């Protein structure tokens, strides 16, 4: 049980090589669930190995509780890790696997037995204790790997893509189970994944990484609703956010974005955007569920008529694709109101939810609410640019 704080952590594999981790700053409170998410090669696993002590950092500090652990060996950091490959000791039985760390730490055998029984009951693997890892299914191996981590009651759990070797159905089951487990145990947890759904569903805090840099750090809600840049916006969310490149114009003293479906045009007023943006190339971001069918109730919101090009019924929703400003745009509609291909739709947008990004840098334009790295009080503050 402890807080975890990364202070300006840097990592490079040698002079002249690009930095693997650049100025990583984040902190989580005791009992929080932190997700490190990003595409492969973004440095998330390296960062986790650094927290574990399996790799050395080249700058900064890693604080667990009030202690700087960056110079300590892995065994002294009091952390436990679940690996993607599970890394169960193949020649040992499940019981011996769970006991191993306790025996190394010279715990009394009676206490060890108690602990193994507790963990086995918690994870429902009591009937597997005498088997070898090779005799277990993937899901069972995953449970044993968790059991080995739970047994020591460490300060922090580290999970390195623990669900990615499971089949889709089991992955969803285990995801719920992990969340349940965390709610019961309330141990500080760091969880690495490339799966944005796991990131959204499991995390109290999410750090989106790319190229060794934290792109944004915040709650899942902040990351989803208030992405700091184009990368975060495109990485989180499925189906992904629509991006429409356009040029802002000034009309009647207000900034507007002009949308063109080929059939009709509409103006989205950009009231929240500061001046000085007219005639600039921007990218307008719109989540598929933020485009709705025009209805009588919502009046005043801009509407636009567009032709349906493709529909993809997924069951709960139907994805409808239209063409706006020459870009394919996805709308997520309820199946019973979804139109057929070739029909025309009246679409409606909420201008307040529209996001704008700089076309050159990909940075968000306007105000982004996000968690600053040092913020412990969880209050929403201005996102500090890098």
């Amino acid at each position, binding site marked *: 049980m402890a807080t975890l704080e990364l202070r300006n952590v840097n990592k490079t594999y040698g002079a002249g090589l690009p930095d693997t981790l650049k100025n990583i700053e984040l902190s989580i409170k005791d009992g929080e669930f932190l997700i490190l998410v990003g595409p492969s090669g973004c440095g998330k696993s390296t960062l986790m190995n650094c927290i*574990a002590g*399996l790799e050395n950092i080249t700058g900064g500090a890693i604080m667990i509780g009030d202690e700087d652990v960056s110079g300590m060996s892995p065994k002294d950091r009091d952390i436990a890790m679940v690996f993607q490959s*599970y890394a169960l*000791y193949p*020649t*040992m039985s499940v019981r011996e696997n769970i006991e191993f760390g306790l025996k190394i730490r010279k715990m009394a055998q009676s206490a060890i037995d108690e602990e193994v029984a507790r963990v086995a009951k918690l994870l429902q693997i009591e009937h597997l204790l005498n088997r070898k890892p090779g005799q277990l299914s993937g899901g069972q191996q995953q449970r044993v790997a968790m059991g*080995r981590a739970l047994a020591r009651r460490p300060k922090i759990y580290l999970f390195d893509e623990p669900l990615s070797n499971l089949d889709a159905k089991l992955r969803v089951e285990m995801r719920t189970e992990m969340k349940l487990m965390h709610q019961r145990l309330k141990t500080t947890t760091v969880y690495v994944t490339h799966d944005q759904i796991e990131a959204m569903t499991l995390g109290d805090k999410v750090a989106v990484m790319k190229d060794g840099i934290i792109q944004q750090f915040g709650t899942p809600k902040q990351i989803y609703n208030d992405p700091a840049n184009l990368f975060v916006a495109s990485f989180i969310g499925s189906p992904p956010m629509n991006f429409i490149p356009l040029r802002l114009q000034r009309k009647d003293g207000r900034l507007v974005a002009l949308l063109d479906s080929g059939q009709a045009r509409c103006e989205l007023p950009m009231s929240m955007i500061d001046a000085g943006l007219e005639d600039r190339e921007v990218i307008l971001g719109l989540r598929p569920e933020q485009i709705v069918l025009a209805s009588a109730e919502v009046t005043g919101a801009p509407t636009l008529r567009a032709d349906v090009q493709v529909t993809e019924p997924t069951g709960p929703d139907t994805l409808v694709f239209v063409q706006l400003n020459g870009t394919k745009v996805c709308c997520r509609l309820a199946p019973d109101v979804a139109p057929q291909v070739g029909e025309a739709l009246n679409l409606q947008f909420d201008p307040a939810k529209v996001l704008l990004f700089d076309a050159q840098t990909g940075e968000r334009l306007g105000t982004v609410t996000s968690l600053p790295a040092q913020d412990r009080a969880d209050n929403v503050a201005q996102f500090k640019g890098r």
Partner: protein
Amino acid sequence: MNSLAGKRSISLSRIAIYAVLIFAVLLYLVPLVVMLLTSFKTPEDISTGNLLSWPTVVTGIGWVKAWATVDGYFWNSIKITVPAVLASTAIGALNGYVLSMWRFRGSQLFFGLLLFGCFLPFQTVLLPASFTLGKMGLASTTTGLVFVHIVYGLAFTTLFFRNYYVSIPDALVKAARLDGAGFFTIFRLIILPMSTPIIMVCLIWQFTQIWNDFLFGVVFSSGDSQPITVALNNLVNTSTGVKEYNVDMAAAMIAGLPTLLVYVVAGKYFVRGLTAGAVKG
């Protein structure tokens, strides 16, 4: 084979395959048969009959005489081989463990240089080795010979273990480190128990090499401490008296038996170990 229908049709090609195989087997077995037959013959029988003829009188006198001659040298060979095999395997395992799981700066280069040892002909190390042994005061001692065998064998044993261990996932060592285990604890409790196949390969390989070695034996030992291969050579190459082929053959068989025994006992691991890591799972 047509397993689907279950009928065994013997085609011409199959007969041809078996014929070739049986011929090959016979070809390989003939020398052994000749040796066995000859070892149980009397000297008179050998000079009158041909190589493949059955002994007119089956006698064990050749084996008794052979054992009397090589008895001491047989035990010399055991005293040389067993410690050399065990030590070179143990050190090789440790080397392989370090080179695959605890890489250090330059470890790849180190491994590459070590591989050169596998290609060094025996002859090239004779002079430097004897010089070194002389300096160490181990010239013409069993300890010295064992030492040479260990050093020469390390290149092979390290290669075996290193290549076996690179197929073991790094995460195992990481997990053990987080569990609090140190360098030797991980080796002893996690890595070694997984190493049975490669240990067997190493033991067989090293046993065969060292037991059958002649050159190091003849150079680095003398008199009563020579290994059985050297004794066998001395026996067969005597130029005085009548050639006792039955004794020669029996002595050669005695010299060859231990390696044969090792193959029979541990042979199944040999193929398994050599192919380990080739296929996942």
